[in-house]
């Protein structure tokens, strides 16, 4: 394969795109990602200088729901992401090549981008028996260890990769574990959800592509930008909770009028995710808006946290957050990564002052 290293900036100029046009694009990108104008230079620099970063996506004990969710992202869309922003060099569901040709693509990407590529993982890893999940004759553990060796960071997409998810639910028949149970020597970003919100998956990638850093993480290794607040605290039905107005069954007056679903088992108070603000599928709706309580799918061990229709015994936020779930995997790794990111992020912010398109054109 051609190893031409032409950058995006060069490609745009060769295709007759003016610098002003390019910067307008960067401004629009910043606006789309809800970033302040001061971030435009960072975006422009990132886009101009780099080849598209290589991303290797590994699928283990998974259902492909996370990939499907990726394909639902509106901004950036999947097609823009893979054509313009990243080089998706290995991905079972999307890549054309099969068999040896697919594995060769993975190996080529690892060699060409040693120390610089991102690994995305969906699915848990079974440790009960190496034969429980194999790809090209290799156990998932072998594939994961080999592939992450030269990676800059790992993004665990979905609750299975982040926390073990459904395969790890009692009695965990295959000995499934999370990515951060295995990868302990480099940053692991957990992007849980079953599946994660489409825009959250691409939002984490966009953060890395734009700022060149990993986002700040919470104690479960989750980006604070998307997992910093409970569903309950952002829920549009919260005023009805505060007023004590609840749906008592599906399709009663409370259900029809959009009152609080707490008594129907909503796990919003103990679930940290962006559903209530980002919503799903281009803001169309989200579970609570469509009448079903939150099932808590972004939290560790939510499958074993009691029935989906049983009301929580402790209905408020912070206390239940740590008490309700078993010990989360990856806390240590997440904290280290968060520390690294905090420093690099602060530095990045210091270096970028307010600028306009006009300022940029002078440069």
């Amino acid at each position, binding site marked *: *394969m051609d190893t031409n290293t*032409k950058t995006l900036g060069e*490609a745009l100029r060769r*295709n007759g795109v003016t610098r002003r046009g390019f910067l307008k694009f960067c401004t629009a990108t910043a606006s789309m990602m809800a970033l302040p104008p001061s971030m435009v230079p960072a975006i422009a620099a990132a886009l101009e200088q780099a*080849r*598209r970063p*290589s991303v290797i996506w590994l699928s283990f004990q998974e*259902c*492909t729901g996370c990939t*499907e969710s990726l*394909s*639902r992202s509106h901004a950036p*869309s999947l*097609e823009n992401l*893979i*054509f313009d922003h990243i*080089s*998706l*060099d290995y991905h*079972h*569901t*999307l*890549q*054309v*090549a*099969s*068999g*040896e*040709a*697919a594995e060769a*693509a993975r190996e080529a990407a690892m060699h060409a981008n040693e120390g610089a590529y991102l690994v995305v993982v969906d699915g848990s890893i079974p440790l009960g028996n190496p034969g*429980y*999940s*194999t*790809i*090209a*004759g*290799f*156990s998932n553990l072998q594939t994961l260890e080999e592939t992450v060796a030269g990676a800059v960071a790992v993004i665990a997409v979905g609750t299975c990769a982040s926390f073990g998810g459904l*395969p790890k*639910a009692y009695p965990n*028949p*295959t000995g499934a574990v999370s990515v951060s149970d295995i990868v302990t020597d480099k940053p692991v970003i957990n992007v849980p959800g079953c*599946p994660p919100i489409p825009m959250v998956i691409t939002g984490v990638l966009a953060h890395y592509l734009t700022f060149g850093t990993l986002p700040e993480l919470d104690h479960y290794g989750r980006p604070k930008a998307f997992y910093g607040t409970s569903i309950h605290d952002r829920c549009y039905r919260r005023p009805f909770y505060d007023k004590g107005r609840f749906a008592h*069954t*599906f*399709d009663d007056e409370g259900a029809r*009028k*959009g009152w609080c679903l707490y008594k129907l088992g909503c796990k919003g108070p103990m679930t940290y995710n962006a*559903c209530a603000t980002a919503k*799903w*599928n281009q803001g169309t709706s989200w*579970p609570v*808006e*469509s*009448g*079903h309580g939150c099932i808590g799918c972004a939290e560790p061990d939510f*499958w074993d946290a009691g*029935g989906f*229709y049983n009301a929580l015994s402790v209905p408020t936020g912070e206390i239940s957050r740590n008490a309700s779930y078993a010990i989360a995997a990856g806390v240590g790794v997440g904290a280290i990564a968060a520390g690294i990111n905090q420093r690099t992020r602060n530095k990045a912010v210091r270096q970028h002052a307010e600028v306009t398109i006009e300022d940029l054109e002078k440069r």
Partner: protein
Amino acid sequence: MSERIVVDPITRIEGHLRIEAQMKGNRIEQAYSSGTMVRGIETILKGRDPRDAWAYAQRICGVCTLVHGIASIRAVEDALNYDIPKNAQLIRNLMIGAQYIHDHVMHFYHLHALDWVDVVSALKADPQATAELAQSLSSWPNSSPGYFADTRRRLADFVESGQLGIFANGYWGHPEYKLPPEANLMAVAHYLEALAWQREVVKLHTIFGGKNPHPNFLVGGVASPIDLNSDSAINARRLSQVQDVISRMRQFVDQVYLPDTLAIASFYKEWFKRGEGLGNFLCYGDLPATNMRDRDSFLFPPGVILDRDLSRVHEIDMHDKAQIQEYVAHSWYNYSTGKETGLHPYDGETQLDYTGPEPPFKQLQVEDPYSWIKSPRWRDKAMEVGPLSRVLLLYASGHEPTRELARFALAKLDLPIIALFSTLGRTAARTLESKLLADAMQGWFDDLVSNIKRGDTRTFNEALWDPSTWPETCQGAGFMEAPRGALGHWVVIRNGKIANYQAVVPSTWNAGPRDASGQSGAYEAALQDQHTLVDSSQPLEILRTIHSFDPCIACAVHLADEAGDELIKIQISG
């Protein structure tokens, strides 16, 4: 000496599939299909609240993200004799229909098309000639020379970047790619458009189920209430959004998917002569006009076709233990009754028993167990399930719109009806049923609106929600026609909890290994049907036929109770 070709991973599918082909010269003599990943979801389901089961079962697969949720709530409702309101049935039909069309279009463009479409050749296309081609096929508006010039430029920039990403290492330039550059460019444009289209049409699931993938379901109805005077329920705004999605689906199927299928197929007519395999086809039936007990009201009829004989449809009975059985002779499971025996799902019994080679390995020992998929059989015969089975059942049962559509498509291609028994027949059947379903969706939507107009806004039946109303022990089966074929879930409920759970899914029927008598599964048989490889290092032909089934391997691999300590007897209503 004969060569063993291994393709692992098979990409552009759901899940983890490995194909090994034993060659005789350049011809496939024996093919072996292996599912290489197991999770154990049915074991995890034991002891749970049956009303929660849909959420666990749904995670069997995130591509056909709706089907296991639906099969699960139907199984629990069957066990409890739980009726659902008419609106809930119509909304479920709409969600199922939307799943089909979304799934089939994505399969065609994003999983299957690049077996037939050479992306690199598209760079040589003339945009003017591409526009003329597109306009000769359809009234789809994105067809100007400028539009195709832009698409070609975008593709050229991408290729020139030297980073081919998902297109790296494709078998570009393989002599089996037969489309002219203009058809390739048109298909690439539609590949990209379909990605954008699918993001819009999944919103139907989001409106009723709150999200997609993995929308929410509810035993006893649907969770989204209808209230025309509420801003937080299904109201006129929501219904307009649903109508918009249905219109977009119909337009894309009529103006892009159907014409593209016929246009591409016309260059590959030899693929209507190979890849049939079994010649036996099975359907459980689905999409009731009334309710799940009223099989006569189903859009898709249940039944079995044997040996290509369309003059006779055999009745299928899911609770007759002599009919459906699963074998594990070549699967990594044990049976207490012995590895050579077959068991009906009622008696479902499975213990994980990996006896394959220690990873890393080069080749499977195919005389031994070689897959995490079992081998289901109907009256000891291997069956194909899926779009081709449904279209043949519709055709055999005299469904006039299907006959007309099949006649139209075959006339366009100048092919006889027998051409459907093939690799591309399977692909074409998927397109044809999408057309039938897109039209049916409008009907269900109109019924929903008139029902609301009549004042019926019920979406949930509370009568049996409380487990204290349930019998101490009950059991039921939920079935559906998933996009990939016949799907059944069986549940046993004891003291309000799941005592046992078993699923037999479409890709288990199609992707399963040989049974105790050595009979191949549908993938294997299809590959053993007249497949020669032009270049064994680029086994494009294997991908074509395997992709024509739209494999869903996470679905296919399942496992029931590890103990296998009880016999389960289930009566299916109706």
